[in-house]
């Protein structure tokens, strides 16, 4: 027996749960304003989540998937990206989307059951939320292929969950990206749960980062509650991708502190005790502690930020409520670039029968 291949998976953390730096921070962290901006994005996401859940409970929007406890993944990823990179998200990635310029009104529209929510005024080329798990990974590979073919210095960044790594699409697309050395960064938000299925029933792999090995791709693990680590490792992967070094898979270790969605009741399948424990690792607290340690944060600033974020969220909710409802034509307007004649009669029928009291 001879050894023909050997692999290692590394793990990166800069801040421990007490917000203490366990090693020298990367250069970008010297810019305190940048860290504060990241902190703000994380707090805003959390404020949005709380409001969105409340809106769902009162029937103002539909099912909603909160990012509670996973804010550092989205914010770390999005702050590492360039504007003309492309984000290929799942449905739980508004933390990243808000940084990218998607508006909270758009997010509310989406979860409120209105396709206009995916017509981002901001990042026009970012893909829309992807609900069928794992199916967005090939999209990201395809977009990366386009960038490479056109010699554009752009990277496609794909987000998916731990559950998503069980889907064939994830593996197939990563394998193609490996063969074609595509400018692609895949980030797994390993929040330990796929609805009720815990990580250990999802795969016998010790880490999810090692799934990269199957594709001959670099796989790395990062503390997903440490936004500095996420931004740094994603940044390295982006640099590598941009300079022709090919794809990277990054597993960010987090924890889903909330229910899967508002349609879920996690108490059915996990005990409150283990969730409580996870609150000691959560990312917002960690960064706040670090900022406080370096003298960049205090209660006053925190209170101001919380007020600020609440106001911003409330303004978005008001703007959402103020939008006119979609008309039934919306079903036909963008089905094809030009509506085929064969569908004209159906559009007429829809107009004629639009329910009374409903938007026409």
């Amino acid at each position, binding site marked *: 027996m001879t050894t023909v291949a050997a692999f290692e998976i590394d793990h990166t953390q800069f801040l421990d749960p007490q917000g203490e730096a366990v090693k020298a921070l990367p250069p970008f962290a010297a810019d305190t304003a940048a860290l504060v901006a990241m902190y703000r994005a994380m707090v805003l996401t959390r404020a949005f989540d709380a409001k969105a859940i409340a809106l769902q409970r009162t029937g103002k929007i539909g099912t909603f998937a909160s990012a509670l406890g996973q804010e550092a993944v989205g914010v770390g990823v999005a702050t590492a990206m360039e504007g003309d990179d492309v984000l290929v998200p799942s449905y739980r990635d508004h933390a990243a989307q808000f940084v990218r310029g998607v508006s909270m009104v758009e997010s509310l529209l*989406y979860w409120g059951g209105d396709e206009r929510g995916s017509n981002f005024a901001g990042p026009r080329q970012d893909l829309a*939320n992807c609900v069928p798990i794992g199916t967005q990974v090939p999209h990201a590979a395809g977009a990366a292929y386009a960038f490479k073919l056109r010699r554009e210095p752009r990277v496609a960044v794909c987000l998916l969950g731990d559950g998503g790594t069980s889907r*064939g699409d994830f593996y197939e697309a990563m394998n193609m990206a490996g063969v074609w050395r595509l400018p692609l960064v895949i980030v797994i938000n390993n929040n330990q749960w796929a609805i009720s299925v815990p990580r250990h029933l999802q795969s016998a792999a010790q880490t999810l980062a090692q799934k990269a090995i199957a594709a001959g791709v670099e796989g790395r693990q990062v503390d997903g509650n440490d936004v500095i680590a996420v931004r740094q490792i994603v940044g390295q992967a982006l640099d590598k991708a941009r300079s022709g070094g090919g794809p990277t898979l990054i597993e960010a270790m987090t924890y889903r502190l909330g229910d899967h969605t508002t349609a879920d009741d996690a108490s059915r399948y996990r005990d409150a005790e283990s969730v409580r424990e996870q609150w000691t690792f959560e990312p917002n607290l960690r960064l706040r502690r670090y900022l406080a340690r370096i003298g960049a944060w205090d209660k006053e600033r925190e209170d101001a930020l919380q007020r600020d974020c609440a106001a911003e969220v409330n303004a978005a909710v008001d703007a959402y409520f103020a939008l006119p409802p979609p008309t039934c034509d919306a079903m036909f307007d963008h*089905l094809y670039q030009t509506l085929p004649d064969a569908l004209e009669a159906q559009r007429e029928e829809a107009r004629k029968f*639009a*329910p009374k009291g409903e938007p026409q």
Partner: protein
Amino acid sequence: MAEINLVEAVNLALAHELARDPSVVLLGEDIGVNGGVFRATVGLQARFGPERVIDTPLAEASIAGVAVGMAVAGLRPVAEIQFTGFIYPTLDQIINHAGRIRHRTRGRLACPLVLRSPAGAGIHAPEHHSESPEALFAHVPGVRMVIPSSPARAYGLLLAAIRDPDPVVFFEPTRLYRLYRQAVEDNGEALPLDVCFVVREGGDVTLVSWGAMLQDTLAAADALARDGVSAEVIDVATLKPLDLPTILESVAKTGRCVIVHEAARTSGFGAEIAAGLAEQGLTSLLAPVQRVTGYDVVVPLPRLEPQYLPSVARIVAAARKALEYA
């Protein structure tokens, strides 16, 4: 006799078969500890153990593929796909394997699996959670395609599906899961998988439907009755193999037919029924066949759901149109 709703009827049938036949296993995402996102399998893992009520990794193609392997090796797997919007990756296994294994081995091997999935719109769910792709499966040789429309038929048809020696795709209309209760006896009596059910008799027009739309179709029949029109209502229930004779017989009596389904119209299963009438019922037809269906559009997000789903008003209007012909 307990009054139960449709999702409870599904649970009852699953429990009945798990208890009766040790070769029955359930598999799917979140069906175990969590009891399924619609609670269809609630309590079953606790009762029958995690080896027989299996929480799978998130991989629909292989949920179907593993079920095929289980079935070939002598189990009776009942696989759940969490929503029909996520069932498309199973088509490869259903078409290329499940529907063929008996044929291509000349009966040496068989594939008695059930692929269950909550189907349809009308529950204000997110994208991809409101689909009705039954026509795709109805096109596949070697499989059966079944959609119950009442708690009692859910119970009886699911028992039959599990006991059937061949693959059965079984859609459960989410809109009906908790809509109403019905007395269902847990007597283990299966319903036949090759008949359409005449659920209301009438002489003026035949309304044909299945799944959740049957409720609206019955409401349309009520509305028509108020105006003195007597509608016969047929629940297709088993789309494949189709019991066309029951439909032909009804149309022979009424001369008019309205087909109602919520899937997109083009190449939907309503087309097959209309084609059957055009081929074998033409001389009975006094009026053009009417299809009242979802439009040929993407099932919209919840805000436009009411505009998408065939409404009672649309069904009534179609029936009236059919009645206009002399």
